[in-house]
């Protein structure tokens, strides 16, 4: 009799543990799913807005670029990207140099993206077809671009996003597993090591000036 009671108690305890584990997994799943869905919704808005601009053939190139930039301002976390790009070198920059770097970094990305933008025709099909929650609660979304000016195999791009308050913002762009943040960080590291912080900011400034000149109308 005592043995039967003991077996029943053991079975109950096991069942309870299993139920708790299942509840935990379900809760985790729901939470992860919710965060990925929230990030995806933000990015979907961005895709829709961008496609609308790309498909508006009445826009002059300068206007089109400005509209895209205005969309992007709400979607990218430039201060965080700048910190990630600087990495351990950030400590060697004075607050003024940090300010200068951020300004030049943002301008650099903006100018280059503007240049890249001219290659898109608006005929591309852009789909968000994957997502995962990362260990530090960032979310990575996968985008696939096909058709139009994309290559035959299509282009796959991951966006790493981070929640800022209630807003999901992009902190890295990873086409074909090559991280923009990692690439820029390597370049920054090389320049700071070889030539110093002042040279880094000057190099970015010079690059921006030459790009702006190249893109100037006429």
């Amino acid at each position, binding site marked *: 009799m005592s043995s039967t009671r003991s077996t029943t108690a053991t079975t109950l305890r096991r069942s309870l543990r299993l139920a708790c584990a299942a509840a935990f997994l379900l809760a985790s799943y729901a939470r992860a799913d919710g965060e990925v869905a929230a990030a995806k919704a933000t990015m979907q808005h961005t895709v829709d807005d961008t496609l609308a601009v790309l498909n508006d053939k009445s826009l002059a190139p300068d206007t089109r670029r400005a509209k895209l930039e205005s969309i992007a301002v709400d979607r990218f976390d430039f*201060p965080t990207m700048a910190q990630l790009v600087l990495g351990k070198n950030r400590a060697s920059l004075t607050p003024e140099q940090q300010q200068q770097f951020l300004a030049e970094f943002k301008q650099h990305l903006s100018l280059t*993206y503007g240049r890249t933008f001219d290659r898109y025709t608006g005929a591309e099909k852009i789909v968000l077809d*994957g997502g995962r929650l990362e260990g530090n609660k960032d979310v990575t979304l996968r985008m696939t671009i096909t058709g139009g000016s994309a290559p035959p195999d299509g282009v796959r*791009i991951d966006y790493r996003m981070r929640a800022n308050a209630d807003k999901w913002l992009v902190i890295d762009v990873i086409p074909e597993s090559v991280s923009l943040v990692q690439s820029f960080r390597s370049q920054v590291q090389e320049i700071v090591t070889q030539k110093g912080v002042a040279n880094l900011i000057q190099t970015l400034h010079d690059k921006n000036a030459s790009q702006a000149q190249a893109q100037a109308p006429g």
Partner: protein
Amino acid sequence: MSGRALSLALVACLGFGAGCATSPGPFTPPPESQSGSTALAPTPEPDQRASYPKQPMLPGPQPVQVSDPFQGFNRAIFYFNNDLFDGYLLGPVAHAWMFISPETVRRHIEQAFDNLNSPGYVIEPLLQGDPKQSGVALSRFLINSTVGVAGIFDPAHHFLGLARRPEDFGQTLGVWGLGPGPYLVIPIILPRTCLRDALAYPVDWVLNVGDGGIWTIWAPWFAGIAVSSARYTNRRALIDADLNTGRAAAVDFYVASRDAYLQGRARDIRNGAEAEETPNDELYEIDDGNHPAP
């Protein structure tokens, strides 16, 4: 590859992230941001991640260990390849070719050359323990060489969903556990490589017929030069826009090329497989400047 990778990043951001307007201030994350160093303190929840159903994602960027002991030599050769050879010979010839040929024609020519790499695409997966991929490559070769008119078209992908996956012996060595070794830049033939891939090149020269040149043993010398030059020019034309964007985007194009090459090779060796643990979170931790004393 590096130009493409960089430009893809920029292309991606272009539509969805080109901006330089106002922000809260330099390095000032918005309130309650996770971006701050406190919020970024590692609080991994592996159970949570494991519980999320895996979707067909690209693997995340992996930390790349860069070994570049010959940087002085490499930069000199890179300057020759990028500024002199491409600037004054290959680039202008490619632009002329672009002027007279539609992009569609260039893409089909490249597909036909790529089809000739099939021996390598079939054999290398076998050496990597992936017979299924080997079968896919063999099927692609048989279908595209016949229905696809000598590989000019790609019905295997378009109608049967058999996607192209380039393979080479460098990847096989990587799968076997051999690291990339020192980064190397070799004049013209291998613009960017690493010691492992350079050592693998003779095998690729035999197996990857489209990229390599074993057939030139039996062909007149001028035929080999002509065909290789034609393919090189066609490829250069196909990546022209990417290359320009990559050059414009990089503040140090040598480093950008090196990094993109090494990241890309790491991706190729993983063959799209996601790691059990994604060890890339460290890249996204904001450095708070507190480093333990050595």
